[in-house]
């Protein structure tokens, strides 16, 4: 036997999970969503057993699909023996894992009137982006029990709302509103990936999650050609372009100290290609503009910060996000408008949970010169709560803490 007897086919289980889930939910309907989840899990576990070089399937995704589909059919047969209920399955054999139905499935979930956006995001993280409940917890700082319950409720709501309906009949008419919800969901998924607290990956970015979100936004844009989607693509490109410079030798590098030659030039160019002034202004466009200004700035002087502040003043009209306001505070401080920043900080306080990590860090940074004692106190409270080593080290090494 030599190493040439087989070749590992490039595979990505996380994307495969979403493709399989979408294909099977399209085929068997939301009534069988529990069976589908179990079947995919089982097919993945079975695939672990094929380590014998002579037995590795050539097209793993298709193999997984067939194994999972047969598993669902068996489960439905068993269930029907007990209840003698009529089963609904599509007979079209063309529905294999080859057709990527992830976007359709996200649109379908987005169209639900009974599920909150946060619950939609969690459901999609699990079933389209293939994250385990544990990983969703690690990436979002949400409690695992709460995530589990949210997914369970979302499944029940979907089953009640769309019982016995075919997904493509629900999706005949996609409204602007549904596209906006999908954009919001993908934006949330991307941000969760871009700012991961997952201790295991020893990074602050879950890169493959960001890339999968990008690929689905691209599908959304190709399909519906919306200005807002185009600008969301630009925003993702600008962010992903900097991932390789964010961590160096296992250490976090702040934006201003990043080696710009490590930025991905092609992705930045692609970002500018997609950046496009929309007929109706939207938050993705303004956010993309802000990041493009940071990327192209030759120096971060008062003028730069005042330009950024003008964009933030605009952005705040399009979003209620307290995080955006926190970023705005930081810029005000940088433009030597510290009093305004502190005033705004007081207003944001009630919009965030107590001792919010990012809030504390921004406040500590702003107070560093005028009130170092208070600043140190805030930082120690953050360090005590933070389990993420790479972030802790950053705080220690950048003099945020006087030991």
């Amino acid at each position, binding site marked *: 036997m030599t190493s040439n007897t087989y070749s590992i086919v490039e595979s990505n289980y996380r994307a495969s999970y979403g493709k399989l889930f979408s294909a099977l939910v399209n085929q068997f309907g939301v009534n069988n969503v529990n069976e589908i989840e179990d079947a995919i899990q089982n097919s993945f576990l079975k695939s*672990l057993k094929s380590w014998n070089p002579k037995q590795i399937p050539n097209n793993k995704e298709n193999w997984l699909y067939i194994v999972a589909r047969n598993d669902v059919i068996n489960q439905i047969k068993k269930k029907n023996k007990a209840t003698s209920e009529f089963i609904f399955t599509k007979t079209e054999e063309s529905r294999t894992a080859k057709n990527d139905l992830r976007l359709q499935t996200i649109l379908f979930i987005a169209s639900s009137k009974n599920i909150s956006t946060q619950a939609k995001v969690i459901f999609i993280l699990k079933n389209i982006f293939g994250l385990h409940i544990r990983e969703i917890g690690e990436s979002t700082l949400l409690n695992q029990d709460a995530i589990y319950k949210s997914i369970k409720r979302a499944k029940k709501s979907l089953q009640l709302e769309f019982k016995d309906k075919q997904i493509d009949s629900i999706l005949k008419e996609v409204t602007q509103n549904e596209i906006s919800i999908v954009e919001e969901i993908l934006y949330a998924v991307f941000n969760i990936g871009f700012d991961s607290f997952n201790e295991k990956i020893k990074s602050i970015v879950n890169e493959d999650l960001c890339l999968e979100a990008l690929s689905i936004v691209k599908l959304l844009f190709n399909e519906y050609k919306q200005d807002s989607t185009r600008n969301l693509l630009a925003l993702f490109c600008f962010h992903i372009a900097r991932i390789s410079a964010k961590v160096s030798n296992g250490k976090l590098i702040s934006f201003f100290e990043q080696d710009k030659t490590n930025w991905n030039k092609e992705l930045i160019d692609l970002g500018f290609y997609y950046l496009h002034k929309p007929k109706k202004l939207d938050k993705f466009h303004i956010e993309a503009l802000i990041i493009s200004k940071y990327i192209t700035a030759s120096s971060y002087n008062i003028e730069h910060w005042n330009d950024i502040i003008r964009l933030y003043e605009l952005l705040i009209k399009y979003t209620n996000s307290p995080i955006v306001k926190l970023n705005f505070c930081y810029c005000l401080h940088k433009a030597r408008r510290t009093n305004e920043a502190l005033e705004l900080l007081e207003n944001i306080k009630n919009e965030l949970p107590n001792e919010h990590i990012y809030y504390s860090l921004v406040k500590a940074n702003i107070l560093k010169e005028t009130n170092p004692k208070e600043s140190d106190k805030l930082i120690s409270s953050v360090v005590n709560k933070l389990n993420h080593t790479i972030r802790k080290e950053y705080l220690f090494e950048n003099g945020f803490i006087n030991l």
Partner: protein
Amino acid sequence: MKNFLLLLHEDIEKMSNLSPKEMEELGNSHIAWATKLAESGHLISGDGLHENGVLITGKDSIIKDGPYLESKELIGGYYLLQADDIDAIVEIAKECPCHLWGGTTEIRPIMDMEEYDE
């Protein structure tokens, strides 16, 4: 060269709690490990095992169908390996990907009757 059977006892609970990405990594580790053993000449054969099996006991051949979930662990696969002595196999088995997620490996030297002739 002596032959050894390496049994993989998997922690069922941990295994069924893996994320897609973790499963992918584990699967790739097994393939890489099996390939390495094939290249070094230690691998004779090896496969994963279905969890559904049949137990037959006693003179009356009483049949019991699996899986046997009363135990926390299940034999999830085996490798048939060859090496000069058990120490060499222990060194090899330490790297078995089975250990990554709470699994235990068991090495059983295969009886060779010629050993007892001398």
